[in-house]
């Protein structure tokens, strides 16, 4: 299977550059798009370059048969000018355009893989037959740390591979007193070198010209490497070559002088100040993803539940479909579903933007250092702390935030733990339950839920670590710290839009379908004599289903259909729990959850009856179950996208088992005392 076929052929084939009047220009005239791979060590600007070269049409997803995420895009390269001097030439800029399939391979320091991501890079570059390899590899190298980037180049130059080197961060190198002679570097490496600045889109035309020139040409003669089976001898040979290349290209040995980044890191990674700075950054992230997003979400919610729904209702009435099941489906099913999906957009956009800023600035690597010791105790790297913290705002962006973890297995483990973080949607229910059952101790009860959430994360993390992840090696802390940089608006916007689009495409369908399905169940009568979409909840299929599962919760003290139906609604969205309760008891939803009024009295009565006179432990058990079971369908959709259906369903199973077990334990022990 060719590389393009493996890339799923999802990109439209563009016509290749039209042959000029001089057919022997050397430009490829193959009907298929040439494939160019971006290769390089992490933090060398590879993905920044990818974003700069590609526009719309980028797809992100796991490489077929792997859990490694690879970005693929269309690079519409234009040469500087069409080189043609014939008098009757009709060549135009469009004729000079060459469409290239660009693949952003995972970052790697060498062809000796230490992770599935690096293994995929090796396989695609040298493991496949020549016909299945990229037509050309662009290797990004950080000019400020050339030595560590050139090991990969050394290995690639030992292969028969067409390649060019793109030198990035020359400005950072210059500030450190390192000036690179690109011609000398190209001569010593034996392959072309071009200096670029992908953040500011500098040198991209020169890169395009170089790539177009090299496509179709034979690869440079491989570097004469040591023929020895001793790996250490091979390494020594490569490093000796690297040292010679760096010496010639820079004119002197690289000095380890302290830089501005080092002065900042003295505080940012310090034992005491570092964690404090980290907590401050996390507080900002948390505040932005809750406080800033919240009004925007309310605005969108009001828009869809107000003008949009009213408009649709008016239109359907005009068409003679008012007060019919069609209106119910459209307004309460589809519009409600789309509205729910779109209310996540501000939250997700802010989250993706913040992650992009933290990563682009270089701070994320420092945060991983600061939190490494804490996260290592449950077998996760320091970076896993960030999505877990975000989960306390909302689980949906937190799941997407696991992308910052370089290892797929770590992403899966973290994504399985995120649902146990108590999000703000659950908080609304906790506040009301606290007011109903705990009076002056309501705050303490809510706080206890957060403490329980942290304990569950630790316990489940340790449990998974000792079972399904027991063979996962715990790598020692070795983190390459990139130089601090000011994030660029263009890159942040590009990355944010790319990730947001992916979320909407994948999760959107799941959310809309689920909301519509719940409406349908609530509209179908379970008893004769009732009309479709005009049935009380208790007499609908939804109510019957709730009543059928209610006995499951009897050991936890809340085995009533009213409580069970609330948990079913909560599966769709925790924000809908209170309104669902109000609908169940046919009372108005309280304006302030801290003063539940009639609804509170009704709920208290139900819990008293279902618990046999022990409403307090039953309420605690209910809150624990609400905190630990499946967050919402949007979180499931995000998990489905990030870790796939198998792990998502496994996660649901773990959540339900943990939630039910804890709820039963809390009630059975609590009723002995309360």
């Amino acid at each position, binding site marked *: 299977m060719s590389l393009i076929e493996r890339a799923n052929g999802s990109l439209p084939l563009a016509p290749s550059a039209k042959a000029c009047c001089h057919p022997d220009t050397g430009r490829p005239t193959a009907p298929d798009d040439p494939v160019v791979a971006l290769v390089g060590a992490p933090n060398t600007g590879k993905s920044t370059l990818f974003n700069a070269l590609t526009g719309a049409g980028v797809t992100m997803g796991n490489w077929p048969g792997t859990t490694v995420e690879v970005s693929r895009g269309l690079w519409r390269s234009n040469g500087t000018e069409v080189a043609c001097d014939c008098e009757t030439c009709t060549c135009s800029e469009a004729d000079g355009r060459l469409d290239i399939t660009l693949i952003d391979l995972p970052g790697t*320091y*060498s062809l*000796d893989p*230490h992770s599935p991501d690096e293994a995929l890079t090796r396989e695609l570059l040298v493991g496949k037959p020549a016909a299945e390899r990229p037509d050309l590899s662009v290797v990004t190298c950080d000019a*400020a*740390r*050339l*030595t*560590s980037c050139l*090991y990969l180049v050394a290995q690639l130059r030992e292969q028969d591979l067409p390649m060019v080197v793109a030198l990035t961060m020359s400005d950072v*190198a210059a500030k*450190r007193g*390192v000036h690179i002679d690109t011609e000398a570097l190209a001569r010593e490496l034996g392959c072309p070198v071009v200096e670029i600045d992908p953040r500011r889109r500098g040198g991209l035309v020169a890169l395009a010209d170089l790539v177009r020139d090299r496509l179709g040409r034979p690869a440079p003669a491989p570097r004469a490497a040591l023929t020895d089976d001793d790996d250490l001898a091979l*390494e020594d040979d490569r*490093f000796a070559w690297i040292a010679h290349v*760096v010496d010639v290209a820079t004119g002197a040995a*690289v000095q*380890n002088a*302290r830089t501005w*980044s*080092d002065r900042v*890191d*003295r505080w940012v*990674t*310090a*034992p*005491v100040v*570092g*964690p404090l700075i980290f907590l401050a950054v996390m507080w900002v992230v948390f505040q932005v993803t809750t406080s800033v997003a919240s009004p925007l979400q309310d605005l969108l919610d009001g828009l869809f539940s107000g003008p949009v729904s009213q408009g649709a209702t008016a239109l359907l009435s005009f068409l003679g479909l008012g007060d019919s099941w069609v209106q119910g489906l459209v307004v309460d099913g589809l519009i409600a579903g789309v509205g729910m999906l779109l209310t996540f957009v501000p939250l997700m956009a802010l989250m993706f933007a913040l992650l992009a800023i933290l990563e682009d600035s270089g701070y994320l*690597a*420092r945060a991983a*250092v*600061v939190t*490494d*010791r804490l996260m290592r105790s449950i077998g996760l790297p320091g970076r896993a702390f960030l999505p877990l913290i975000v989960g306390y705002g909302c689980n949906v962006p937190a799941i997407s935030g696991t992308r910052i973890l370089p290892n797929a297995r770590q992403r899966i483990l973290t994504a399985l733990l995120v649902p146990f973080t108590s999000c703000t949607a659950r908080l609304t229910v906790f506040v009301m339950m606290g007011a109903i059952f705990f009076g002056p101790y309501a705050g303490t009860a809510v706080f206890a839920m957060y403490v329980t959430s942290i304990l569950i994360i630790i316990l489940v993390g340790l449990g998974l670590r000792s079972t399904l992840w027991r063979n996962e090696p715990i*790598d*020692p*802390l*070795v*983190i*390459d*710290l*990139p*130089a601090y940089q000011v994030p660029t608006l263009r890159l942040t916007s590009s990355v944010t839009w790319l990730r947001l689009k992916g979320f909407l495409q994948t999760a959107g369908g799941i959310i809309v379908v689920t909301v519509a399905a719940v409406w349908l169940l609530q509209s179908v009568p379970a008893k004769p004599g009732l009309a479709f979409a005009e049935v009380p909840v208790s007499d609908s299929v939804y109510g019957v289903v709730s009543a059928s599962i209610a006995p499951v919760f009897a050991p936890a003290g809340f085995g009533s259909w009213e409580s069970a139906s609330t948990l079913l609604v909560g599966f769709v969205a925790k924000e809908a729990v209170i309104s669902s309760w109000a609908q169940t008891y046919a009372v108005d939803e309280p304006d302030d959850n801290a003063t539940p009024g009639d609804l509170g009295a009704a709920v208290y009565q139900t819990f008293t009856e279902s618990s046999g006179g022990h409403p307090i432990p039953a309420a605690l058990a209910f809150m624990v179950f609400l905190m630990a079971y499946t967050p919402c369908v949007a979180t499931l959709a995000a998990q489905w996208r990030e870790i796939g259906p198998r792990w998502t369903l496994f996660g649901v199973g773990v959540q339900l088992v943990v939630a039910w077990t804890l709820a039963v334990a809390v009630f059975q022990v609590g009723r002995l005392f309360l």
Partner: protein
Amino acid sequence: MRRLARLGLRVGAGFSLVSRTSGGGRVAVVAGTRIALGKPLLTQLRARVMA
């Protein structure tokens, strides 16, 4: 150790320690590359102080 070597921290390489990190680690600079190293790994490295 292979991973450290890829980053430039190999036998015979000169490096500087520029700052401490939480958990007893250090940030080392070798050939222009800044590397955060955890304490357990640091205890396994042998280095000689150069003038």
